[in-house]
């Protein structure tokens, strides 16, 4: 990995390491080294540099909440805002523990899209009514409760690299 004009440039080995870590972040340096045919110390150096420069933001566990008996409701909330207040609304939403993701959209009016999780529908409504609707600049809110998930995957570097070659 190099820094060129203040931008991070990954080398071929970095890309390969990222692909492997995306599949299973619990693999050891030795295991990754064996897969790629390089020394574990080389893997350590590359991973350490990517962590240091924020390329690898964190390692996390994907927990199946149903399996451990945690009942919850997930919803996608679109918050239409006054353009001057949009940034502040997004920041306030990002601070809430009920909000998992916050993004800005320019599709129709300026809006903030957030993924929200709550214990049940009533708690979800209370959160939106008491903590989101009163925020200055909020014009209206549309919320869709997710009833079934058909696919749930993260952005795949491997797939993106393959497609960008064509």
């Amino acid at each position: 990995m190099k820094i060129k004009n203040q931008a991070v440039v990954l080398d071929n080995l970095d890309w390969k390491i990222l692909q492997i870590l995306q599949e299973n972040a619990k693999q050891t340096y030795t295991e990754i080294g064996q897969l790629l045919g390089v020394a574990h110390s080389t893997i350590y150096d590359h991973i350490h540099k990517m962590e240091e420069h924020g390329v690898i933001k964190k390692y996390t566990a994907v927990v199946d909440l149903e399996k451990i008996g945690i009942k919850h409701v997930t919803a996608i909330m679109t918050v239409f805002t006054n353009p001057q207040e949009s940034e502040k609304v997004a920041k306030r939403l990002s601070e809430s523990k009920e909000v998992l993701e916050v993004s800005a959209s320019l599709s129709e009016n300026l809006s903030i899209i957030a993924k929200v999780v709550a214990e049940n529908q009533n708690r979800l409504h209370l959160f939106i009514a008491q903590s989101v609707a009163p925020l200055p600049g909020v014009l209206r809110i549309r919320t869709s409760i997710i009833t079934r998930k058909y696919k749930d995957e993260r952005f795949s570097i491997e797939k993106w690299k393959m497609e960008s070659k064509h």
Partner: protein
Amino acid sequence: MVANSSISRVLRKVPRENAFYFFTSIGNYTGENAGSLEEFVRKIKEVDAKSLEFHLYRGDFEKWVDETLEDKELAEKIRSLKSLSPSGNSLRNQLYLIVSKRYEKLKGEFCS
């Protein structure tokens, strides 16, 4: 006769975090809100009837009137409206009658 201090409390403008926010269903905010009894009366005439139905049957109106505006008498009247199971514009008209009558009464008593 209700004491002037109690009336002014019911008629006061509340901070935005304590205002009533009108939704049409779980998480769907209409953009309309009321920060006082006077505004509440006006909004009953303006908001989608679906929103009135949503909040009446969840008990949101009576809760806000009781806990935020601190008007137990009006809260009780709104609560009893539920038993008649009104909907649509019939609900709007009945709710408006109850709330506007109470508002005019309190305003009259406060001024006299």
